[in-house]
């Protein structure tokens, strides 16, 4: 199936996603922060990235997505610009903003609120991998 990289500092959630995604035949990798996650993108070359927002820093996940989707010709991550990014977060009610996938403000492919029902997550992953 697919190589999925999860960048999230919540060990319990990572353990849960490993059980779920491996049960559905995916190869699962994880990193606990944005810096290690960005390094792993180059090493693993994932087919899809699951990304948390609030890790060591308040909006670390947003920074990761912006770096991965940096349109500059000399971007370090240019080869991974097309890798689908799914944001998993509980930030929905923590700000007065309502976030959603947007090419400018938040360059990601899907924005799912934790806890994401398993079937919804799997369907989102399948749809993005099939693109």
């Amino acid at each position, binding site marked *: 199936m697919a190589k999925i990289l999860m960048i999230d500092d919540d060990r319990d959630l990572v353990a849960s996603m490993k059980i779920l995604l491996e049960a559905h035949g995916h190869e699962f990798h994880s990193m606990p922060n944005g810096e290690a996650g960005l390094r792993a993108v180059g090493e693993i070359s994932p087919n899809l990235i699951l990304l948390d927002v609030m890790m060591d820093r308040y909006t670390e996940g947003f920074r990761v997505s912006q770096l991965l989707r940096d349109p500059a010709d000399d971007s370090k991550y240019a080869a991974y610009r097309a890798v689908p990014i799914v944001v998993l977060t509980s930030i929905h009610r*923590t*700000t*007065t903003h*309502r976030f959603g996938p947007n090419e400018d403000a938040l360059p990601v492919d899907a924005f799912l609120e934790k806890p994401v029902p398993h079937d919804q997550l799997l369907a989102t992953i399948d749809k993005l991998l099939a693109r």
Partner: protein
Amino acid sequence: MAKRKAASPPIDAGAFLSQVTHHLRAPVAVSRTMLSLLSQGYVGKMDPQQADLVRRVEARMAYLQTLVDDLVDLASIRTGMADAGGPTALGVLVRDVCARFEPAARAKGLELGLASPTASVLVSAASGLLDPLVTQLVRNAVTYSTSGTVRVSIEQDSRFARLVVADEGIGIPADNRANVFEEFFRAANAKALEELGTGLGLPIVRAVACRAGATIELESAEGRGTTIAVLLPLTAAASRSTMRRRARE
């Protein structure tokens, strides 16, 4: 030795609430994820007694999550952190909220219908402020109905949009109607039907209405249903446009 009085750091209430919310929601959300792995058999099959206990814990955790969300909504509305300034296309917001509750309504055999004027109704309050109001009204109507229809409609006059949510549910007993806007109050028939409710739904509706300059009208008959209408001020431009259109008619 010189003494210096410690200065209080400036309080960013919004950032603090964001952090508190994150720290409350995250463990609840992860616990629900782990429980659903158990209940869906990803780590082995449970016997009926174990499955029943897990189902009960799942229900409690879902309640806890709703409670956290409701408390945060109420705090951000009351403290002015929820963005008040619109405009909002009310029909779009209401359609989105109804879509969120459609699966729950269908699962209970309820018909959830939305009727709105064809013209876009622009109200002056922000969608972030109005979302909890519409959500609570539709959630209550679906939760406290066991059959029949839930009708959501939007009408417009020269100054107000009238949002109406009408159900054919259990209704509110006459002697409880004065209390339903109080925090954590739950009518006896509501508790009997749905054990786990936060008692914050209508207080949130009232708090939003206060911020948005709206008026609430409640009609209910026990055993026959409840109708709640909220009159929301239109934007000045929408109001002028409506008056011009009416003058031409």
